[in-house]
């Protein structure tokens, strides 16, 4: 394999992984607070649409990303309101959110299927990008790729290095106890859900602003569900999201390359690989952790909280 092909594959993987990193890191924070939001797909597709629309009208990538962020947040607030104030079942509400998001975006985006935009381009970081091999590999990425990695770090830092992060985790583990010592469970969860929506929105917008300069209904094509899987895969540990997203994005991209190299397996079976690999990795992770109790699963995940006092 020559060098430029290798670099190309790596860039391909980074493009395929980044939407997953955004969506999954947002959902990770949400789940750490004890909330399971299955509406990731719906929030992503709304972000993809709004990012596209704003980029189309303003040509300003910064505004486009902000719009995607706000769009994801806005639609996640429906989920937040229903689950936190009206105490609805989170699984069902999340599914409804996905349906609603897909329908809403398809409807609202009808006028934009004929359009195209200027993509957000990769940037060469001066000097560093000139280093042979390492330069194009690490220092010539899309700004949003760097942002995704930064967000993973920030979520880790927030969860494990700040007081609020500690409170959020304690809420996720035992909301009654956290409430008893005076923490506002609903407010923390509400904020976490909005953050999750914002990240999913940006993740979706990555598809329509970086990967392809088009808008099409259903263009997230199931990536929201993959992001949900990644959170479990990562055992709710932020940095493992990167690993999982790269593995998943990597297998997706590599199976396309394998076809190009004519590796003799039926394409259908090759296409199954990312899904099977996720399961296998998950199991092997569990086997390794077998004798330890898993302390990372938020105990209150998906449970409804209502303060009685």
């Amino acid at each position, binding site marked *: 394999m020559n060098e*430029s*092909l290798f670099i*190309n*594959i790596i*860039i*391909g993987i980074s*493009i*395929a992984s980044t939407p997953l990193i955004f969506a999954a890191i947002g959902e990770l924070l949400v789940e750490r607070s004890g909330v399971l939001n299955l509406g990731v797909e719906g929030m992503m597709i709304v972000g993809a649409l709004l990012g596209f629309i704003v980029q189309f009208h303003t040509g300003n990538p910064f505004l486009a990303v902000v719009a995607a962020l706000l769009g994801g947040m806005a639609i996640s607030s429906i989920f937040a309101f229903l689950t936190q104030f009206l105490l609805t079942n989170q699984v069902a509400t999340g599914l409804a959110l996905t349906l609603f998001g897909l329908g809403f975006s*398809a409807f609202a985006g*009808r006028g934009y*299927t*004929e359009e*195209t935009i200027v*993509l957000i381009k990769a940037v060469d970081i001066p000097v560093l990008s000139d280093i042979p091999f390492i330069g194009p590999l690490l220092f010539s990425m899309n700004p949003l790729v760097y942002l995704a990695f930064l967000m993973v770090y920030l979520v880790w830092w927030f969860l494990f290095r700040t007081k609020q992060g500690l409170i959020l985790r304690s809420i996720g583990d035992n909301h009654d106890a956290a409430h008893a010592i005076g923490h506002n469970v609903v407010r923390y969860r509400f904020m976490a859900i909005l953050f999750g929506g914002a990240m999913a929105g940006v993740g979706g917008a990555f*598809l329509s602003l970086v*990967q*392809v*300069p*088009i808008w*099409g*209904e*259903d*263009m*997230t*094509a199931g*990536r929201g569900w993959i992001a949900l899987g990644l959170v479990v895969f990562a055992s709710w540990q932020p940095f493992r999201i990167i690993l999982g997203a790269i593995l998943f994005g990597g297998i*997706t*991209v590599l199976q*396309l*390359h394998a*076809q*190009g*190299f*004519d590796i*003799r397996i*039926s*394409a*259908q079976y090759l*296409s199954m690989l990312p899904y099977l690999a996720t399961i296998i990795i998950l199991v092997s992770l569990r086997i390794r952790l077998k004798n330890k109790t898993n302390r990372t699963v938020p105990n209150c995940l998906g449970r409804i909280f209502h303060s009685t006092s």
Partner: protein
Amino acid sequence: MSKGRFSSILKLSVLSTVLAFTSNVSADPVKAAFVYIGPTGDHGWTYAHDEGVKYAKEKLGDDVIMTTIENVAENSDSERVITSLARKNDIVFTTSFGYMNPTVKVAKRYPDVKFEHATGYMLEDNVSVYSARFYEGRHVIGKIAGRMTESNVIGYIASFPIPEVIRGINSAFLAAKSVNPDVQIKVVWVYSWYDPGKEADAANALIAQGADVLMQHTDSTAAMTVAEEKGIYAFGQASNMREWGPNAQLTGIINDWGPYYADRIAAVRDGTWSSSDTFAGVQQGMVKFAPMNNNMPTEVKNEAMKAIIDLSMGAIHPFTGPINKQDGSPWLAEGETPPNFPDLLTMDFYVEGIDSQYPN
């Protein structure tokens, strides 16, 4: 008896309604309905059909009332949609292969309604089939690709291994090879008609593996945008995709269903419709081309134009022997061209020279 009188009045009024109805028939517009597999905004397959509908509407004006329904999945739901349409229309076009059995089932229940099924093979007294020889279009873009590639690698993004897609790959390869003996074709199957992200991933993978000209048999404009971005060449699929690749799009294969739709609906209006089997190509104008990009060398352009003219006069056939199958077994003898059935319509093999393994 009053009852008898009442019923005779009733009969009379029914009769007069019937009379009024029949006397209006000739002036009534033809009601035509179209079932689409995707959204009209896909800018591929469904978009092209919808353009055809618009053309027919413009041509026939008040003689026709059009109904379209998009995003109808190729499953048992489609039978209900087709039935609902059959109840209210004179002719129903079902524009994807997966509607074949539902269309035939509904046609049996509504013998007075005409049906037109695209890309299938089941004819009935009131069911026509129609399809286009897209492989003729592939022949032209194959010639261009063979000339324009510098890496001698053509990347092909394929959807599902069905005869239509296989015909396209073989035709493009043979044409490219005829002008460039060193050319190679790399096929990547994405198992989807429409997934912009995956189509873009596939395009990137093919480019990374050396392809500098892309062809696609999927519906979105994603691959075209990647080609534009990477500064390589591609061809529009089903419609003119120039907007997404002003430099990349060398030309495009355009599915022009409009005249066919106008003809068939007019035939219903005139009472001359009969079941038919249409497999039309460049000659009949069902396969057309987007304008040739000016960044192409003149001799390449001329060669492509000549191929188009030859096809439109029926002077050449993209599959003209001698052609062997991939495994080396003979398919067509010197000068031989294949019949529609079974060779073209059931094609399930690559021709000799294609390296990729046939998907099984």
